């Protein structure tokens, strides 16, 4: 009886949780470019980035009833993008499909990025980091996520994310310094 009474009190104290289910099209329009940016940072390929973002969005749309109920639907989708982007095999397959798609459109297979060379170089260094370190750096830099948000997104602890971030920063700083010395 005591437990039952406590439950009733807690139930009365807790405001009803009403989760507003966002329309997938709204989610898609808002998040698509950011997902492409994350994939672009981690793959360095426009075609692969677009394809990986599409794959992630297709996966989200198919399970939107479930994904939209998660605490962070965009976190789930970013995780898909981050994992696929750092999988070499996936990247190759996506790139091949993207090239095929672009070829069918009659367009260029891989438009030259218009990024400054020093920035291209930095992203190339990021992509050479171990997988988790690259993901942490990209999620922090591209989306400005907190360490907690980064950790939740890729499914690791905050402490582990902190370690990855510190190691990644140390490696990048060292490599940039070495490059300047040459």
């Amino acid at each position, binding site marked *: 009886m005591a437990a039952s009474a406590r439950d009733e009190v807690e139930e009365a104290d807790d405001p009803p949780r009403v989760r507003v289910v966002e329309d997938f099209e709204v989610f898609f329009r808002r998040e698509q470019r950011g997902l492409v940016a994350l994939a672009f940072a981690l793959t360095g390929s426009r075609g692969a980035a677009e394809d990986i973002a599409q794959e992630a969005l297709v996966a989200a749309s198919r399970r939107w009833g479930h994904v939209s109920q998660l605490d962070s639907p965009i976190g789930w989708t970013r995780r898909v993008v981050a994992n696929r982007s750092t999988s070499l095999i996936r990247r190759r397959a996506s790139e091949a499909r993207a090239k*095929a798609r672009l070829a069918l459109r009659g367009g260029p297979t891989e438009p030259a990025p218009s990024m400054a060379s020093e920035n291209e170089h930095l992203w190339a260094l990021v992509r050479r980091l171990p997988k988790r370190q690259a993901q942490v750096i990209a999620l922090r830099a591209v989306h400005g996520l907190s360490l907690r948000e980064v950790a939740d997104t890729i499914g690791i602890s905050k402490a582990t994310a902190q370690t990855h971030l510190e190691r990644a920063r140390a490696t990048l700083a060292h490599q940039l310094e070495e490059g300047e010395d040459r």
Partner: protein
Amino acid sequence: MTDLDDRLTSAVDDLWWCVEDFDLPATVQRRPAAQPALAFVAATLLVVIVAVGFGSAVRDTPRDMAASTARFQGGVTTATDVAAAPDGRSGPMTMREAHLASTVAAAGRGLGWDVDVPGDVLATTSRAPLPGVTFTEVHLDLGGAAGRLQVSYLRGDADAVAEGTSVERELVEQRGTADIYEGTDGNTARAVELFDGTTIVYVRSEWTSDARSFAELVEIADAVNREHGDRALGG
């Protein structure tokens, strides 16, 4: 470190500048068809997978355990053919089969299952369906006639495996670099299929076996992938 922050800020600004310029589709688009040669390889691999009884997850017609067992026993002839032993057990296990069975048993014991290897190994299969592709399968007794757990492991050409597994199934979970899909395998069983680049792990269990939840099958698939992904079972 300030210099690194400045460099990162500049790189991010530049990245976004590029991405803003991308002409992105306005709606979700299904993936286009793969290149013909790749599609042919994928189709070939799929046919082989189905033929050796690995394609359960991609079929949408319900099957029962009898059909599954018949497929397993009748559709596959290997060095460790089930018929070789009078009690229905396999012949001597290959190292790959023994390793796979041990991995599953260890992971199962971690989940609280009562499983013993080789005592609970009902049957094993291994073959090379294509050059560079290896296939290994074990069936374990997890609680009587209706309690069979099937674990299949395929490793091979990355592109063919990737295309072969990218059929109309829903991604339900990711473990590291692995995608895990829910398999459809009749009204009396549950199944999951893990895909990790060059590797597919398929785990199927009867409802009445010790594997009582989908999450447990995911754990088994993940354990097999972690144990064998780049090692002994690799072709």
